[in-house]
């Protein structure tokens, strides 16, 4: 089976700023992969390249074994801030992607409505985003993402703006959902514990210009309940060392 997504030595400069310096990253079908790196490293830039928000780069990007340019919109993207439209009700926000795909508003609503229970949003269909809690907003944004039925999910720091308790709850909930649906996921985060808890593999990026410092496979058994198990803590400490090491060049 060919890889779902593969980036080979992808480099990108914006203006005269080098943002990505030879990123090599891949994801297998059904795999949960995280990209971990400091703020401003260039993580969101990778997603902008993948979703067409930025044009032009060096290196190759393949999807299902063929150049990404030949693939038809294979990604469902969740931007860094939830990007819910304040003027749309929750159900119309979650149905947005289907509407853009050409479905009528009625058909799109009928398709998302049955999923509200699973996403903990039952009863909030006709509310506006301003009436939701932070965690519910993220679940609505995630529902809007997965309902598009794309081959792969791109999640940009989905829980970055949440308080610690809500974030932990959302991480557990996302793991349960992923176990059930086995989406192919590329997750961006700067939270080491979150990456260890959720991922099959983690790429650790340097600061700008971003390079891959390390690739870490997480073989902890699933479902993972204990965030503070000795094994998980050891991996976490190890990755933190890499991120905080002032001379990443000495590592291999």
């Amino acid at each position, binding site marked *: 089976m060919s890889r779902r997504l593969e980036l080979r030595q992808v480099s990108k400069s914006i203006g005269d700023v080098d943002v990505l310096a030879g990123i090599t990253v891949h994801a297998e079908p059904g795999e949960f992969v995280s990209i971990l790196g400091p703020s401003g490293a260039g993580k969101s830039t990778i997603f*902008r390249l993948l*979703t067409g928000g930025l044009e032009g780069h060096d290196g190759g990007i393949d999807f299902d074994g063929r150049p990404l340019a030949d693939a038809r*919109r294979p990604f469902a*993207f969740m931007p860094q*801030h939830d990007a819910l439209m*304040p003027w749309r009700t929750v159900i119309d926000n979650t149905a947005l992607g289907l509407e*853009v795909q050409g479905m009528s508003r009625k058909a799109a609503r009928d398709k998302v409505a049955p999923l509200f229970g699973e996403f903990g949003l039952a009863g909030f269909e006709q509310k*506006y985003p*301003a009436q939701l809690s932070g965690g519910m907003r993220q679940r609505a944004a995630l529902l809007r993402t997965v309902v598009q039925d794309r081959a792969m999910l791109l999640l940009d720091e989905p829980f970055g703006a949440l308080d610690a308790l809500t974030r932990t709850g959302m991480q557990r909930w996302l793991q349960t959902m992923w176990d059930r649906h086995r989406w192919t996921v590329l997750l961006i985060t700067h939270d080491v514990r979150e990456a260890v808890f959720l991922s099959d593999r983690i790429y650790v990026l340097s600061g700008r210009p971003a390079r891959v410092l390390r690739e870490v496979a997480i073989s902890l058994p699933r479902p993972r309940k204990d965030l503070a198990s000795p094994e998980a803590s050891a991996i976490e400490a190890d990755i933190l060392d890499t991120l905080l090491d002032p001379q990443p060049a000495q590592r291999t």
Partner: protein
Amino acid sequence: MSQSFSAAPRIVVLFAKVGPALLSVGTLVLAWELYARISGISPTTLPAPSRVLAQAIQQRQALFDNTVPTISATLAGFACSLAVAFILSVLIDFFKPLRRALFPVFITSQTLPLVAIAPLVVLWFGFGLTPKIMLVALVTFFPMLVALVQGYESTDRDISALLSSMGASRMRIFVLARLPSSLPYFFAGLRISITYAVVGAIFAEYAGAAKGLGIYMLNAKNNFRPDLVLAAVLVSALLTLALFAATVLIQRAAMPWERLDAARKS
């Protein structure tokens, strides 16, 4: 949302909002009334508010007949101005260089003194509705255009990025994101422009008209009837307030989510 607020009777809430304004206006009117009575100043120089009100009631038919053309001119001029501002704002949003080409012209148009322009426009277009529409449009068009263009620009970049990742065309992004994002700016512009619009219409009538509050004021002034001038001023103030209130109501109906946002931020 605040529960304590909605629990209070509506009338109390309403009074808490408009009470201070009523109080300050009331104090002013009272001081004026007292001054006019005590100082013994001639009513042909400064009539007391009670006299203005009495005259307004007595002349209500004439005032009404002259208010209707002013309302028509205001609304017709404002509608034209809105339509043109909207079309141009869309063109500018899709073709940015247009902005640099057109804005200097419009900014210059805003610096023209109405006193000089109004008689000229009447001279060119006669005493009918056309010159009034043009003057109302002149004073309201640019504020509305700026409000709309700024409103489009205020669109959340993440929302645009999201829509284009979904495969939305530029036109689709405009309709789904940029247009709704401009609504708060649009209504802010509307509230300001509608007050300019009334002033613009009265100015145009003042420069020449068969009927209208502007020409009514001019005639009253020439007949040494400041009480009637002020009665017409009162009517135009009430007209402006009513139009302002109408925009607030329309905004509430058009943007039901806005008050939730405000409640969340406070």
